[in-house]
């Protein structure tokens, strides 16, 4: 009950910020539209919707990292968290209260991106449901990263680190804008050590209905989920003692 009350508040805080809606939804849709328009004017298959859309959906999740991080960082700097820490809320209430509200936002964001891609010409079948639901596995990494950053950095630092750095890392190392095979070398190796490209490959496989193609990417994503969430919980618990 207490956690639900806190989670509801967090949902409202995120959804009532027009910048969140603009960046979290508007920006990925604009990129999807632009790249699709570019594809119609170039002779090579660079931005085919079945490959591009899963990448855009994963890229959109990187904004959720920013939202979650900003929410926590602002709660800290604005002292609302100090006030809440003197109430009977338990550590699990805070962590779930920050994590859970972002999950349905991630699903809605993914669904809207796929529906927009459908309007642009992507064939949508029953695999759409799986492609949206698999975000339940992918999104915790991005949300956990937000909880981690929000527990460590202040709201201004979060804007720079999550808003600029992490969104770019997510974009460039995910294999969305270009085929990593074309770059190869250390860039490709680093990309495959991080979760972004695995998240995109997982999303692509599910959208294509290729269930055997989800391996080994799902293991990478689940491993990063566990690692980031553990780090986020550790950082949050440590931050509680410094409020």
């Amino acid at each position, binding site marked *: 009950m*207490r956690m639900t009350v806190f989670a509801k*508040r967090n949902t409202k*805080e995120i959804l009532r910020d027009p910048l969140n809606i603009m960046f979290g939804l508007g920006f990925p849709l604009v990129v999807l539209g632009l790249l699709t328009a570019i594809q119609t004017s170039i002779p090579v298959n660079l931005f085919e919707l079945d490959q591009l859309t899963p990448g855009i959906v994963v890229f959109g999740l990187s904004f959720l990292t920013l939202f979650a991080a900003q929410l926590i960082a602002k709660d800290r700097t*604005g*002292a*609302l968290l100090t006030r*809440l820490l003197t109430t009977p809320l338990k550590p699990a209430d805070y962590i779930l209260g920050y994590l859970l509200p972002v999950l349905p936002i991630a699903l809605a964001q993914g669904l809207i991106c796929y529906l927009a891609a459908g309007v642009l010409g992507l064939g949508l079948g029953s695999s759409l449901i799986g492609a949206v639901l698999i975000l339940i596995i992918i999104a915790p990494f991005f949300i956990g990263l937000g909880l981690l950053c929000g527990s460590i950095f202040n709201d201004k630092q979060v804007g720079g680190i999550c808003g600029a750095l992490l969104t770019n890392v997510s974009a460039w190392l995910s294999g969305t804008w270009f085929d990593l095979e074309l770059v190869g070398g250390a860039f490709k190796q680093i990309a495959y050590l991080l979760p972004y490209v695995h998240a995109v490959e997982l999303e692509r496989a599910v959208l294509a209905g290729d269930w055997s193609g989800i391996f080994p990417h799902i293991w990478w994503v689940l491993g990063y989920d566990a690692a980031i969430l553990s780090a986020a919980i550790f950082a949050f618990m440590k931050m509680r*003692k410094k409020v």
Partner: protein
Amino acid sequence: MDPAAFGQEGEERTDMKEAMILRNLTKRYKDVTAVNELTLSIYEGELFALLGVNGAGKTTTIKMLSCLTEPTSGDALLKGRSILTDKDKVKSIIAVSPQETAVAPNLSVRENLKLMAGVHGFSQAEIREKTNAVIRRFGLEEIAERRAKKLSGGWQRRLSIAMALISEPEILFLDEPTLGLDVLARSELWDMIRELKGKITIILTTHYMEEAEALSDRIAIMKGGALLCTGTAQEIKEKAGTDKFEEAFIRVVKGETI
């Protein structure tokens, strides 16, 4: 822990019941002692002010008493509950209005109040009832549906205190409640605090001497983490040999008292 085990010293008031008993409460950060062996009693219904220059240890004391920070040594009992061993019970009877306004900016005034009632575990019916009651009590009707971030500093402070009081705490910590407010907003907040006097125990920290003098039943002056003196404003003025409280405060802090 039995409150009696704490013992008593100093200005014991046998006619009043203790709401808080602090014994040798100490907080050290590496080689800095923020609060040093703080020992005092605060009585039920009392408005007790903690005064001191920056770095005196006021906010650290409040953080320890509200279970935000663990003491390095010593203990405190709030209504008989230890801040070391009974944190959950302590948290159920206290409320804190921090230095900053500490509101949820994108929630309305009503939603902020509901949030605080909700995290204290009240039922939906109780949340509605308490929220409506607090809105009426603090004259928040006209701004009830307005988002907190759109409010003036004075209204935000008023909301901040209302949020602290919605759980009907037995002990309220007000950390610099009028900091940065204009004269009118401060006067209105003083009236609000005066209305609470005698009903709950209030611990107030402030940098404004006239605020402490006007509102407090008793005052403690701290410096460098240590307690220099406690007493009523009148007692402190007499001790310092002056009829101006601000001058008395300066003399106490400088060690120039009689």
